[in-house]
């Protein structure tokens, strides 16, 4: 199996590794880089548990090869509270009970982060469509929607305060 060198930035840190061409990005993140917050829930690109941000866009990392991410900037769930303070999305999920088993949560939060970057002031319906690539079996989504609304408000208030 041919090996390739991959260099990318993940959560602000530059890493270089040699990987097989066929290594899925999600396995690279979880196994080569030991960042196990990103999960796997399917084999048909259906569940979104593996969602990470690549150059700010939510991507299902089970459907991309690690070699395709050469040169990319990747953010995973582990980057969000890196400064010791919870991100408004994390806060929202905790505050509003947006998670139960927690398995879908990292992917859900990363999807929401990408979505709010595009649409900082969404309606409930837009939020529901925005996370429709992510499955949650536990929560029934209502409280996930509330969590994202909470974060949207908080991020907007912070933006307004910063201007």
């Amino acid at each position: 199996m041919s090996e390739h060198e991959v260099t990318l930035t993940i959560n602000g840190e530059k890493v270089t590794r040699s990987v097989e061409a066929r290594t899925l990005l999600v396995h690279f993140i979880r196994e080569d880089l030991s960042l196990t917050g990103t999960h796997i829930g399917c084999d048909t690109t259906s569940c979104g548990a593996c969602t990470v941000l690549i150059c700010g866009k939510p991507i299902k990392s089970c459907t991309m090869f690690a070699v395709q991410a050469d040169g990319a900037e990747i953010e995973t769930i582990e980057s969000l509270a890196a400064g010791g303070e919870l991100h408004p999305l994390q806060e929202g999920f905790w505050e509003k009970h947006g998670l139960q088993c927690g398995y879908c949560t990292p992917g859900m939060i990363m999807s929401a982060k990408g979505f709010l970057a595009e649409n900082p002031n969404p309606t409930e319906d837009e939020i529901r469509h925005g996370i429709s690539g992510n499955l949650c079996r536990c929560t029934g989504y209502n409280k996930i929607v509330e969590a994202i609304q909470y974060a949207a408000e908080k991020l907007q208030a912070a933006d307004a305060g910063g201007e």
Partner: protein
Amino acid sequence: MPQLDDRKEPHSELAEGVSARVPTTDEVQIKTPEKICGMGHRKKRKEDPRFIQGKGNYVDDVKLPGMLYMDIVRSPYAHAKINSIDASAALEMDGVLAVITGEDLKAAGDLHWMPTLMSDTQMVLPIDKVVYYAQEICAVIATSRYIAADAIEQVYVDYEPLDAVVDPFEAMKDKVIVRDDKEKKTNHIWHWEAGDKAATDAVFKDAATVVKEKLYIPRIHVSSIETCGMVANYNKARSHMQIYMTSQAPHAHRTVFALVSGLPEHKIQIISPDIGGGFGGKVPVYPGYVICAVASLVTGKPVKWIEDRSENLQADSFARDYHIEAEMAADKNGKITGLRVKTLSDCGAADAAANPSKFPAGLYSICTGSYDMKAAHVEVDGVYTTKPPGGVAYRCSFRVTEAVHMIERMADIMAHQLGEDPADYRLKNFIRPDQFPYKSPTGWEYDSGNYEAALKKAMDMIDYRTLREEQKQKRAKGELMGIGISSFTEVVGAGPSKDYDILGIKMFDSAEIRIHPTGKAMARFGTKSQGQGHETTYAQIIAEELGLPSDDIEVEEGDTDTAPYGLGTYASRSTPTAGAAAVMASRKIKAKAKKIAAHLLEVGEGDLEWNIDRFEVKGSPDQAKTIQEIAFAAYTNHPQGMEAGLEAVDYYDPPNLTFPFGSYICVVDIDKGTGEVAIRRFVAVDDCGHIINPLIVEGQIHGGLTMGLAPALYEEIVYDENGQNLTGTLADYLVPTAVESPKWELGKTITPSPHHPIGAKGVGESPTVGAPPAIANAVVDALWHLGVRHIDIPITPPKVWKLLRDNGVTD
């Protein structure tokens, strides 16, 4: 096979002194201040910080030095003879260490078969025949996931296809025998009855109105977002097997492993780490688990096995698959008098349901539901087919969803047939509040209920009468709008150990609480959360009882080396059993604390009274000792002759199950062009007795409702006539997203259980049980005037569209 003839009355008399009438309220009771945060507080979950930061620890996150990976070769046929398995090419590959076949397991001590939870048998790996599509054929052990996946493609299996039998009614004809390993050459597994046949027949003879319907409750799959998996780590030097496993019942699984493998039970440690959803799917022992453990034994190395989603959907335990024929009788006043039910349970290739062992059809005989009637008789037959085995819960108590769907559909059909409003019809037929504790015609003793209050509340919330007016106007314009009601009664919390066991192990559950000298505590349980929030709710229960702040209590579950023995978490049993054990253990601690307080305050125990977090001298409350002061004294200054320490363990055996209930109302609009059903509103009023944490209860109800919506409109596991699974990936098996899931509107009533020490009942599954008939009833309500009497779930657009076309509404 369990003999059930003597089981017609599952519950004999309850303990004396059980109070009869319990008043209903709608205020959550809060007795402790915020800083203690006992019962009733909307406490944010203690477990969340690790999950929202990606620091959960699920089985696939476990990485051990030198770990190997396992992958499984699966059958492309539902029924076939195996002539030979040639693994030589796989074994030649770099990185492949072993291929384990049925023959290997047989040689290792007949490990190629295992018992199911229903005391049937199931193949771990086959020797000569496969009985379902995607059945495990053999396993490859390799140094990486990728090599293992490559190697399974290099195993050549010579199959000789046999006729599949997919339809259970066909299977009953015994033309194709699924289990020719059995002495009796028949697919019929068991016959089970409840209720009084003669009395029921008599009621039907006298009936003024009888309605009949055939209902199919289709095969579905829990599909928790985390699939199943294991890391088995056998340490030869210590003769010790450590197992990380996606298990809802780690202790029971340890015992099963000990019995199957012959390893001594004290040398097996099962750790169920964070679990990514269970819903019943992580109760059974699957062949993959057994093979993985054997692989570690054989290689002496840790071995990881993680299912793919398609393997999970195709081979793991299904739920439901009940073919029901129901009849309901009513007298001339429209009062329901009787119910007669015959059911065929499609078990697949083994009876591997996760029911208490004396209940092959689970608690299905709860099917008289919320209605007072004279007589009922229920018969169920189990049959083998060439499909994967199962019969797990899908977020419900054992077979209660099937029962509730049937009775709620039948009550609705009867109401429509008699020309009565379905809400008024229910109000007229409910078991009245003054009839509790209520003895049902099939032998259940319902603990408490106020069905009227719940339905009336739901009707108020949704403004029922106005909706009926709107429906009339819409119908005049040719628009299709329906209103559906479900007033369900659940039965959860198995259970009293005289009736309930799994493989002989009684269904008690346990709590162990240790209070440290500085007043902080560790509590361990025999249950295992898969998202239910036990770390928070159990801490709140203990906080309520002992006055320790719930943040000072660490809750731990899932490690069989440290937790007390318990039967695990499923069927909404955690609060009814382990939650009660937490109360009882706390009360044992409190009794000792009282002695210590009396000693410290130099008064008699009789002079003391408890006040939230302290013992006070009666009449002079400033003379007091807090629980923290008492804990410190328990290690530093305890009375002479008393054992040091402050801890207790309790194995709680409930006197009865608990019977949560509720009323749901759903409004749908149907698109005449496409047959699509849109849920406009859905109001859910639940009553689960006293509430421990309203935030968590709401979350449980929301999640349960979406898992009730799923089989009502979207999910079904479908096979073709050869037994091939046509819905084996998440691209074909339609789990609802945030777009399909409506905005649920919740309400509550509170009718405490007199049979639980804090009056609580289970709740996580009520909505999964109650929601599907509300939705189905709404759709039929919209179409009744066209002559539609029943539609089997899932109610998909093609089904509705076909009905509309057949009735000339659309073309």
